[in-house]
């Protein structure tokens, strides 16, 4: 399966000519990394420096009053983001209505001073499945308001097409429910989606292993967004590097072009001149 953005790019995967382009902005990495659930801020910082991601996701929560009375005692995350100097992709995690998602995105834009938004509109709390019936409406409002919307969605082809129709220049289907680490549970649909849509596609959520990331990149996906698989690894820093390498490997394999799978075995070593050929039959 091919699509224009990958088939027409002859550059090597590590070159700047093969940059990930989202809403006209180029990124040298095709890995987007979440910032939650790490053992400590130091481990998070080290993982980011190892992975060198294109963007870091962040979120918004209520300021809570500290025992001393003042709200919003800083946990150092804000300073860490500034120190890392990686573009921030705020999310609307936890929003269950279009109105909540739009207001959260607007607050995020002011807070992080960015037009980027990872649009999460949750339709089911058990699976954290996106609200597919209202996602297009939310994305449409945000696009009209000037946001660069990266919608977290299912692998449903028609939903993704509608998101593109209303102006999303990239979409982010899940591989599996958030935090499960199961890898792509519907490979057929993800591959059909890649075949049918030409906009950048990033797999967001459900990846657990670097091989999962490599697999979707081999299918022609343009990038991956992950968090838990790195944060909950026994060595998050090493796993961050492993995912970064896997994304590059998958991209390189996509460019290289895989052989066609065969139904029967074909010897890779030449048969002609095989020692003892026919000896067994002549005895």
């Amino acid at each position: 399966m091919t699509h224009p953005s990958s088939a027409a790019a002859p550059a090597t995967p590590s070159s700047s000519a093969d940059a990930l382009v989202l809403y006209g902005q180029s990124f040298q990495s095709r890995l987007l990394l979440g910032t939650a659930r790490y053992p400590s801020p130091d481990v998070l910082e080290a993982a980011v420096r190892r992975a060198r991601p294109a963007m870091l996701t962040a979120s918004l929560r209520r300021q809570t009053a500290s025992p001393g009375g003042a709200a919003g005692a800083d946990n150092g995350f804000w300073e860490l983001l500034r120190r890392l100097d990686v573009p921030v992709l705020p999310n609307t995690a936890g929003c269950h209505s279009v109105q909540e998602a739009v207001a959260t995105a607007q607050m995020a834009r002011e807070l992080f001073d960015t037009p980027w938004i990872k649009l999460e509109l949750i339709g089911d709390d058990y699976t954290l499945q996106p609200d597919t019936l209202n996602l297009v409406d939310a994305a449409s409002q945000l696009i009209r308001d000037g946001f660069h919307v990266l919608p977290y969605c299912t692998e449903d082809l028609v939903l993704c097409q509608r998101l593109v129709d209303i102006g999303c220049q990239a979409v982010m289907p899940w591989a599996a429910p958030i935090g499960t680490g199961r890898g792509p549970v519907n490979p057929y649909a993800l591959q059909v989606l890649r075949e049918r849509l030409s906009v950048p596609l990033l797999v967001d959520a459900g990846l657990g292993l670097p091989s999962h990331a490599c697999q979707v990149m081999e299918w022609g996906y343009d990038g991956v967004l992950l968090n838990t698989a790195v944060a909950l690894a026994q060595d998050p820093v090493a796993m961050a590097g492993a995912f970064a390498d896997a994304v590059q490997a998958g991209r390189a394999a996509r460019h290289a072009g895989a052989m066609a799978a065969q139904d029967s075995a074909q010897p890779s070593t030449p048969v002609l001149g095989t020692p003892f050929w026919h000896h067994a039959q002549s005895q």
Partner: protein
Amino acid sequence: MNVLINDKPYTLAPGARLADALLLIEARPPYATAVNRQFVPRSSHATHELHAGDRIEVIRPVTGG
């Protein structure tokens, strides 16, 4: 008048502005706000008039996926 700030009850003088609510909870930057699920930009904090029963959200950046 009574309002809710991040789901906790507070009392403000009639005619209070959003900036008064932020002062009351000693909000520290960086933060952003919404009132009744509508975003209120920083430039309007001093002028946005609050009403009894308003639900005010004051949010901060946190880690996320």
